């Protein structure tokens, strides 16, 4: 298995740029903790995209300068952020009504696995001794109008994170609409994954073999 792959996988920044490019002007978006945080760096200044944070922000701005950090103004990852002009603060009940009630256009989540029926597993690997924690992931999964997943296509051991059915504990059922990996962009359809875009040097057949799945062209 030392053979050099014939394809060139996208970098995380390239993945983030693809996602940012697909977000429409005026969209309300929740960016999850972890890899999706990179998407914020690639949002076009020519679009007005409203960022929601589960802890009570709509219109969240970038990280402040070190001397302007306010411990009362943090994001879901508990990192310091700012508020844009026009932004608003609200309590947790209202924030989760926005999430669960279908008011967010897009949630961008990291994941351990996404299944071809749209199921997502991203909160627990079920490992014994691990401290279970779920936060707002399940609310975003069921509530956002579109759920985008950003993740590596393969685990470190070369196992596909796109699967027929999730083996890890589920976060939400049938909710993922699109997956951005370092190898491809795929839509979740009624017939399974449909490939929208492939990284350089990748073929549909090669991706299907790596994924262990039947893949259609979008």
């Amino acid at each position, binding site marked *: 298995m030392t053979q050099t792959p014939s394809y060139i996988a996208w970098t995380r920044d390239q993945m983030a740029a693809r996602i940012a490019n697909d977000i429409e002007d005026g969209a309300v978006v929740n960016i999850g903790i972890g890899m999706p945080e990179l998407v914020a760096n690639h949002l076009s200044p020519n679009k007005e995209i409203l960022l929601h*944070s*589960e*802890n*009570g*922000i709509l219109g969240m701005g970038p990280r402040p300068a070190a001397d302007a950090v*306010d*411990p*009362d*103004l*943090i994001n879901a990852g*508990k990192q310091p952020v700012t*508020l844009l002009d026009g932004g608003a*603060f*609200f*309590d*947790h*009940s209202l924030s*989760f009504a926005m*999430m*669960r009630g279908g008011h967010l256009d897009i949630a961008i989540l990291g994941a351990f696995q996404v299944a071809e029926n749209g199921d997502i597993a991203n909160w*627990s690997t079920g490992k014994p*001794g*691990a*401290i*279970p*924690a*779920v*936060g*707002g*992931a*399940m*609310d975003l999964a*069921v*509530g956002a109008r579109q759920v985008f997943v950003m993740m590596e296509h393969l685990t470190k051991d070369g196992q596909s994170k796109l699967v027929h059915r999730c083996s890890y*504990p*589920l*976060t*939400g*059922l049938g909710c993922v609409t699109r997956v951005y990996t370092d190898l491809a962009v795929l839509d979740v359809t009624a017939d399974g994954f449909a490939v929208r875009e492939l990284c350089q040097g990748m073929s549909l057949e090669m991706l299907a073999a790596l994924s262990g799945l039947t893949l259609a062209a979008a």
Partner: protein
Amino acid sequence: MLSKVRTSALDALADVRDGATIMVGGFGNAGMPMELVDALIQQGAKDLTIVSNNAGNGTTGLAALLAAGRVRKVICSFPRQTDSFVFDELYRAGKVELELVPQGNLVERIRAAGAGIGGFFTPTGYGTPLAEGKETRVIDGKGYVLEYPIHADVALIKGRLADRWGNMVFRKTARNFGPIMASAAKVSVAQVEEIVELGTLDPETVVLPGIFVSRVVAVGKSARAAA
């Protein structure tokens, strides 16, 4: 005269009993009522059930309460953090019980308690391990889980300003669970930076009406800087 003002945090918590269920506001350290939690440690009540989003950060606040061995059970959504080593150790040693609740269900269960709702059907968690053993229903083709309210004996919250009737305003993302938790407890205790005269707070922008606040303690602005 109606005055909910107490002279000290310890005075405001004098009647907390062993075995009480206590809601603690805050998301991480934003909105965490540190002075009230410190007073609770000093007050001595034990065998507590804590309802809070996280399970303590570092070695202060909730983490210190946990370290003091005063907590029997934690109901929260996200106990696993890089600096939650106190909880981690107690949990792994089987010394504290955990009820893990998805964050939106956590706040809605608290809201339901405050609003007099006996239970509600939520899509969050449906079909996942966190809904195992719970009643479910399919409504208009979508699956829902029956969740019950979480009531508390005491809520500890942090705001920016209050008047003596308990009307309150908050600061930025430190609001989070505060106003909701205040509605769900028999006794809700608020720490604020400053207590202002009646009529000072703009009635159009009062976030938490005083009816939900039992006791108010001014702790000054040091609380914010220390967060």
